[in-house]
């Protein structure tokens, strides 16, 4: 059992990347740099990522919040805070 929501989100992110962009080195991502630029995610990849996270965590990121998830750290924090809201 995961000890913290942050771990759960981290695991979900890793699994989601494996599905939508298997060629990306997840551990090599700089969490504070622009995510899409770094790993060359296009809009289709981004939507696939959000669908995977929706399925895994039940958190739906609205389009109006895309600014907040421009970095991996931003995405992680966003998901953690919304997970906590739900529980």
């Amino acid at each position, binding site marked *: 059992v995961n000890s913290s929501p942050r771990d759960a989100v981290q695991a979900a992110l890793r699994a989601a990347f*494996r*599905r939508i962009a298997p060629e990306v080195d997840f551990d090599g991502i700089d969490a504070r740099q622009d995510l899409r630029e770094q790993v060359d995610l296009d*809009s289709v*990849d981004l939507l696939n990522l*959000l669908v995977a996270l929706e*399925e895994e965590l039940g958190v739906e990121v609205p*389009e*109006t919040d895309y600014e907040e998830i421009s970095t991996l750290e931003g995405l992680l924090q966003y998901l953690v805070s919304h997970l906590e809201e739900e529980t």
Partner: protein
Amino acid sequence: MTTEYPMPSLGAGMSQATVIEWYVTPGDVVRRGDVIGLVDTDKGAIEIEVWEDAEVLEVLAPPGTKVPVGEPLLTLRPPGEAPAGDRDEDLPAEGLPTEAPAVDGSARVEERVRASPVARRRAAELHLDLSGILGTGPGGAVTLGDVEEAVAEGTVARPLEPHLRVTPVARRVAEDLGVDPEKVRGTGPAGAVTRRDVELAAEGDWRSPRRAEEGRRAEEEREAGEQPEPDRHAAMRRAVAAAMERSKREIPHYYLATTVPVEAALQWLERTNATRPPRERILPIALHLKAIALVLKGYPELNGFWEEGVFRPAEDIHAGLAISLRTGGLVAPAIHDVDRRSLDDLTTAVRDLVQRARAGSLRASEVTDATVTVTSLGDRGVETVFGVIYPPQVAIIGVGSVVERPWAHSGMVGARRTVTLTLSADHRASDGHRGGLFLEEVAALLQTPEDL
């Protein structure tokens, strides 16, 4: 009647491909459209489909075989057409005329190992070759008991090579996750280990420290002895090079561009998507694809093939979507019948296609069927892209990134989001005037997204 299933041609310039894996075994009944195997081409691994309902009789090209286009891979026969021997055991249907025995088919069928259906299924689960098991049933048929006994006593010969029962994608994912794919329980066809099986196995063990440690070690080893895939990249590069060289050598391109305000379309999308969860959202590319396809219906000279000096218009509109791979190279698999599909449906198709292109699991019909190509270098990319036509197609439509510009309308200037649409077309098949009208019509249609 037996028929042969040949190696399909998966694009201009392809002369042969290597069988990686069969998802079917003799005795399986397949339906039209079923994916039956995986072959390795210079465009990557591609799943091949069958185009008739049939029973698989015999695999002529086992995995690892290089087969020229047009040479037989499998023999098939119509489903339900039992060989003469088996037919005798069946009760003839009342009142129906009995067909003449399929003499042609039965000769080959005799070679097939006789086995009860349960035995056959069990053997497939265990990846055993039935021909290595002694049958004790009627007529020497292998029974379930025979299979179990052979396994228990270890007398079964030639178990299928373990490396043949893990799909390539599953193998790659397993490597990434530090999972031994041979130890994963397969749920795919004939017990094949699929990517999902590997992921589940990894997730099941995710929290086990031992597994995590093994995974880390495997990763370190892999990094130390990093084995790139130069062949795969080189092959894809060659395929792109050959197609583009041919295109620029043979096709007299002409190029047109127009800048289209997309404020109304994007606002409509934003409103539509605001209340939808991610899985139900519509992508802007779906709007473009649909608008392009609807207008193409009135411009048959842009949708089809130029072959041997004549233009042959295509009946349907299958749009190849150019997808650049992060690992290098490019594929342009087709989305079928774009003009007849809803925006939701098109978005789902695009998402699925992009994900599968990245994972290297496209299907034969997708890599061969495109009648026209649409290229977009991404929403963060360049403003304008002029594509190079993929022969023997005659047009490629480019969709640039969204750019906010000052836009004059009715004597007033305001900020509007715009997109530059381009058309590269074959001047042998169409002329610039019609090409221009085409782009203008697409631009106009994008102003009323609710009609798409």
